[in-house]
């Protein structure tokens, strides 16, 4: 790369997005338990949540479960004979037990292991043992409770609001449209990590959205791939804000020489690693991926509001999902989607990709917990953000706005009802 080539086209992101301001931002939304409760009502109970991919239930009779740690329960996604995918709360309508204990499988229906009530793949109640002992039992009213379900690019989303304020398509918006066509279905070699981190769910999202910390916090690992002599402070190529969503295009050091094992892993992998700076020319990048078509590009981090992130390169991608348990506790899930190995040696490259990814995220976590303690104890009450931390500023504004708008609407509705 020409050392004089500019890292990013924007003079400042602040000038591009003046509505976000440049002043300090309060920490209250990261540590106030009351605000957390408002977020649950205004955001988590009424936005679309990703629960899996269509490949997890390709045939009629296939199902999978997804636990929603924020709410403590899990949903079942099942494909019925009519080929339709449906989502149900995993709750028997007799007494509330789980009707399915397996995480995934194939079946003709669900049988509650408590008293043996059976449900079809379409959720209808089909069997009640010793039914004559019940009084006025109306089976048609006792089907599994269904949730709204829709699919974007093969990702299955649910919404626990019975009448969602937006369709999934509306919710994914311009950001969603701009990623259509990426070969998401090619990532069939899958792994998933889960951890409970003592920090606010938004802080964990923030940690994937700025690369200002890369040369310092990740000095042992990805410092020389996502930063380098031409970009010593890990500045972003671009930050694009589309409604409540945001995307960071991350710079890659094309002059980087991999470490010995890492180099062998990159040579023996089914697709380029996200940190390799190698772009697979066979993959047609959708408009919204490396949108500025920078040459020194490694990966994009796209946050779909509120809690779902896709990190994409040309040869692999992975997702992060945040499930808050409290203002200062979150369940984080990272699911990797690698291309399948075309020979046995590529299993080595896959393993190394997984391990390096995990190690890099591990480096973030002590910092997140220390920040949380400082915020909880009031030792920091405002944060001053660098221009390249604009995504953090954006999340703060979006979350606050979303909560306030929801509460205003609720008040209006309340008045209207009186």
């Amino acid at each position, binding site marked *: 790369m020409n050392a004089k080539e500019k890292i990013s086209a924007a003079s400042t992101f602040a000038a591009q997005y003046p509505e976000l301001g440049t002043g300090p931002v309060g920490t209250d939304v990261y540590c106030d338990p009351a605000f957390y409760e408002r977020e649950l009502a205004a955001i988590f109970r009424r936005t679309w949540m990703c629960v899996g991919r269509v490949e997890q239930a390709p045939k009629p009779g296939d199902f999978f479960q997804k636990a929603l740690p924020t709410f403590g329960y899990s949903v079942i996604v099942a494909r019925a004979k009519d080929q339709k995918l449906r989502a149900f709360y995993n709750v028997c309508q007799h007494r509330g037990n789980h009707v399915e204990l397996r995480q995934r499988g194939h079946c003709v229906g669900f049988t509650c292991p408590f008293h043996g009530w059976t449900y079809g793949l379409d959720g209808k109640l089909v069997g009640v043992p010793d039914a004559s002992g019940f009084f006025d039992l109306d089976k048609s009213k006792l089907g599994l409770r269904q949730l709204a379900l829709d699919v974007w690019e093969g990702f299955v989303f649910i919404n626990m609001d019975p009448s969602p304020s937006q369709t999934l398509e509306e919710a994914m918006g311009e950001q969603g449209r701009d990623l259509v066509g990426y070969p998401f*279905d*090619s990532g*069939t*070699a*899958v*792994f*998933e*990590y*889960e*951890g*409970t*981190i003592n920090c606010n769910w938004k802080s964990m999202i923030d940690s994937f959205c700025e690369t200002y910390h890369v040369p310092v916090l990740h000095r*042992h*690992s990805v410092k020389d791939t996502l930063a380098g002599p031409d970009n010593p402070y890990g500045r972003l190529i671009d930050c694009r804000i589309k409604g409540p969503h945001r995307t960071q295009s991350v710079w890659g050091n094309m002059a980087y020489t991999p*470490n*010995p*094992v*890492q180099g*062998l*892993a990159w*040579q*023996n992998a089914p697709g380029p690693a996200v940190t390799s700076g190698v772009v697979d020319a066979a993959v047609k990048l959708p408009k919204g991926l490396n949108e500025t078509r920078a040459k020194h590009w490694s990966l994009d981090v796209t946050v779909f509001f509120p809690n779902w992130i896709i990190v994409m390169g040309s040869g692999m991608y992975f997702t992060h999902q945040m499930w808050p348990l409290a203002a200062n506790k979150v369940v984080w*899930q990272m*699911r990797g989607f*690698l*291309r*399948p*190995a*075309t*020979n*046995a*040696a*590529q*299993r*080595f*490259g*896959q*393993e*190394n990709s*997984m*391990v*390096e990814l*995990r*190690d890099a*995220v*591990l*480096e973030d*976590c*002590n*910092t997140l917990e220390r920040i949380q303690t400082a915020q909880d104890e009031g030792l920091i009450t405002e944060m001053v953000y660098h221009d390249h931390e604009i995504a953090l500023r954006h999340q703060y504004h979006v979350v606050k706005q979303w909560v306030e708008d929801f509460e205003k609407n609720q008040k209006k509705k309340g008045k209207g009802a009186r």
Partner: protein
Amino acid sequence: MPKSVRGTAPLLPKGFKMLEPLVADWVLPDSRARLEKRLTTPPATIRAFYDAMLDKAPKALSYLAERQLGELNEAEERLLKLLLSLAEMGPAVEWYGTGEYPDGFDARRFKLIEQMPDNAAQGARP
């Protein structure tokens, strides 16, 4: 020499006999076991494994590049598993110089809730 003369099948494919002393300690059941091995092995031992493996890794990878997951015999699967241990130990040596994380966050707090099987056919790319 035919196998039957010695009475035991070779531990590793032909040409990789020098790696046989590593098999007992470094052929591990899965990704979870490999992380645990990394976290409980002294840095000098990890380094010795890394050095011994790195020398032969290009040859081993060329050998496995001619073969398919799910179709490996036991000796070939052991060779793959030695390489997978190298994939886990790589960053321990190349990034940290130690199996544990320098800043101390407990790697066991990340649960690998779904892992890629070591040796199973992964299907064609759609």
